[in-house]
């Protein structure tokens, strides 16, 4: 599904990703953890094609397509979805208009007839219920005046409507109370399928209690320095990242899988 090889990327002339390797197979859930500033968000931005993020080396393929050659919207059409750590507010553009435009664009890319407005509204209301966001939020400007938690719910709402094949959730759990956290987890779990994969960026073990990852990776200074199964997250929760300072470089295991 997703294959990242030796990805080196910079922003404003500063190299942030320094040889990232990761491979995600269909249906898998990977958690990425790691200290602040290690390049977790940058990874999502580079994959989604944000302006100003320059790929210096390496390759990324999604479902066999060279992702790095595509425009951001084409990457979305290829099945990529990034739930942002800090979703942007767009006053004046209604949430409903935005969601419909996104779903229409996906249908167009697949050469399918767009949904009728009524049909879409029904689907959007249904999705609102699922993420526990009152349907009034469809009328408001995109994320306009939403609380932190509401913004995160809105991200999950978009994921539910767009049905991407690879979802990257960037700290979607940060700042959420336990109920909201469960809602995010349920949203993700409801979408888990043999065809769909997830990369879950988080600082907290507690999210991973609800979304059971197949693999856990530790990103540090732009590289994956350790990979393991779900138990690694428990270990990190207990130990923190102090050990990273002493970790010799060759211990980095990149995309290698635990036995």
């Amino acid at each position, binding site marked *: 599904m997703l294959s990242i090889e030796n990805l080196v990327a910079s922003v404003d002339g500063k190299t942030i990703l320094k040889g990232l390797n990761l491979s995600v197979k269909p249906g898998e859930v990977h958690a990425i953890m790691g200290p602040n500033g290690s390049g977790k968000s940058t990874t999502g931005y580079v994959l*989604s*094609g*944000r*302006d100003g993020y320059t790929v210096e080396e390496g390759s990324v393929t999604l479902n066999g397509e060279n992702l790095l050659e595509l*425009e*951001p*919207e084409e*990457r*979305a*059409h290829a099945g990529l979805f*990034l739930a*942002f750590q800090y*979703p*942007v507010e*767009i*006053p*004046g*553009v*209604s949430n409903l*208009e*935005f969601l419909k*435009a*996104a779903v229409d*664009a*996906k249908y167009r*890319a697949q050469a399918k007839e767009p949904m009728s407005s009524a049909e879409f509204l029904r689907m959007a209301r249904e999705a609102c219920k699922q993420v526990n966001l009152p349907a009034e939020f469809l009328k408001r*400007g*995109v994320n306009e005046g939403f609380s932190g938690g509401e913004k995160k719910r809105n991200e999950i709402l*978009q994921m539910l409507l*767009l049905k991407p094949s690879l979802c990257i959730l960037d700290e979607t759990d940060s700042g959420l109370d336990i109920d909201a956290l469960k809602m995010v987890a349920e949203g993700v779990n409801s979408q888990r399928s043999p065809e769909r994969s997830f990369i879950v960026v988080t600082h907290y073990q507690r999210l991973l209690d609800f979304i059971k990852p197949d693999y856990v990776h530790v990103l540090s200074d732009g590289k994956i320095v350790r990979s393991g199964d779900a138990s690694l997250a428990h270990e990190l929760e207990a130990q923190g990242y102090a050990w990273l300072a002493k970790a010799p470089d060759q211990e980095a295991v990149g995309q290698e899988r635990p036995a």
Partner: protein
Amino acid sequence: MSEWLQSAIARAETMDDWLAPQRRESLALLREAPWPSRKVEAWRYTPLTALERADLSTAVVDTTAPDAQQIAGVDSIDLVIRNGRFENPMKELPAGLRITSLQSADDGARERVKDLFGTVKPTRHIFGLVNDVLASDGLLIEIDAAAVIEKPLRIVHLVSKGADVHTRVLVSVGEGAQAAVIEQVQGEHASFNTSFAEYAIGSGAKLEHYRFALQTGEAMGVGGSHFKLDDRAELNSTIVGFGSNLSRLDTDIIHDGENAQAKLNAIYLLQQNELFDLHATVEHAVPHGTTEENVRGIVADQARAVFNGRIHIHRHAQKTVAELNNRNLLLSRKATVFTKPELEIYADDVKCAHGATVAEIDKKALYYLQSRGISRAQAQIMLNFGFINELVDQMPNEGLAEWLRPQLRERFASMASSEEFAPVSSEAGEQ
């Protein structure tokens, strides 16, 4: 003096009705007034050639003009002024509301008209003076103290081909009263209309106001909405302008009592060779007033927008809070905007900000939309329309916003699809 003004004065001299004493002073001022040219600051960027060339004196007025369309979803009290004549049979009005046509005012109403006529509108507006001397009819709208008028009053000016008409609206909102007034001007064929409105808003009263200057094409319109705010009065006004051969609007907001609040949002969407000119002046004459003014426009093709926003804070107007912002989006290299936001501050304890910019698309928002599969081109259109729609969203009357939105969307779509379309982010022409 221009021929146009000469003939207007000649026409005014023949007006022989009960308003004559009210007109006299304006007539004298008009005789002395310099005809606006490029040298007159208030008209520097708005040529009157279209008006000078249009000879409407012999035009046959098309009396089969379409009716005022109802606004679906807005249950309003409609007051139709067709080609200068108020024509509604007076229906039953809610308690606390009185409406009188100027032509049929009785002695009592005439006295009350005199108390308002020309007392809010400054005399510096030359077409305001023209309106003083030529207004053939109009309305006196009176809202009693403490009355809450639930239904908005909608004044529709219908201007037919060939018409040259002048009408006046006078509104008094009593102490603690609440009301909404919509002024709507429509027309597209060769015609000229001046419509000026004066509002005296009593202490603690709340007025929701809309002015839709939607004349297009050869329909020329010059008008004004002028407000005087007493203590704690609240004004929330939204102006929407399309452009035509000549479309000019002056608005004055005068803080006459302390602790009054004014919010003014204005939108213009211009295409082809259209011209729209908005001059907005806010006078803070007393302390503790607040003004929030947001003006946004999109200009396409060879169209021209003129915005002059002046906030004048007098020496005694301490603790004034005032903000003025004008943002413009140019969709073509030949589109122009002349913008001049001015803060004139003579008090020392005030909070004020102002600015004018050529809006740029928010890159983060663009990326966000693209990351959801929306093409860059479509995302740009969505954000550009959103820039205008943000102010539509702020309109207190949701039904009215829902009526307006598709019209703006349609106009914007034709602007964005024009061959000239090439969003630019160059500097606006500064006055």
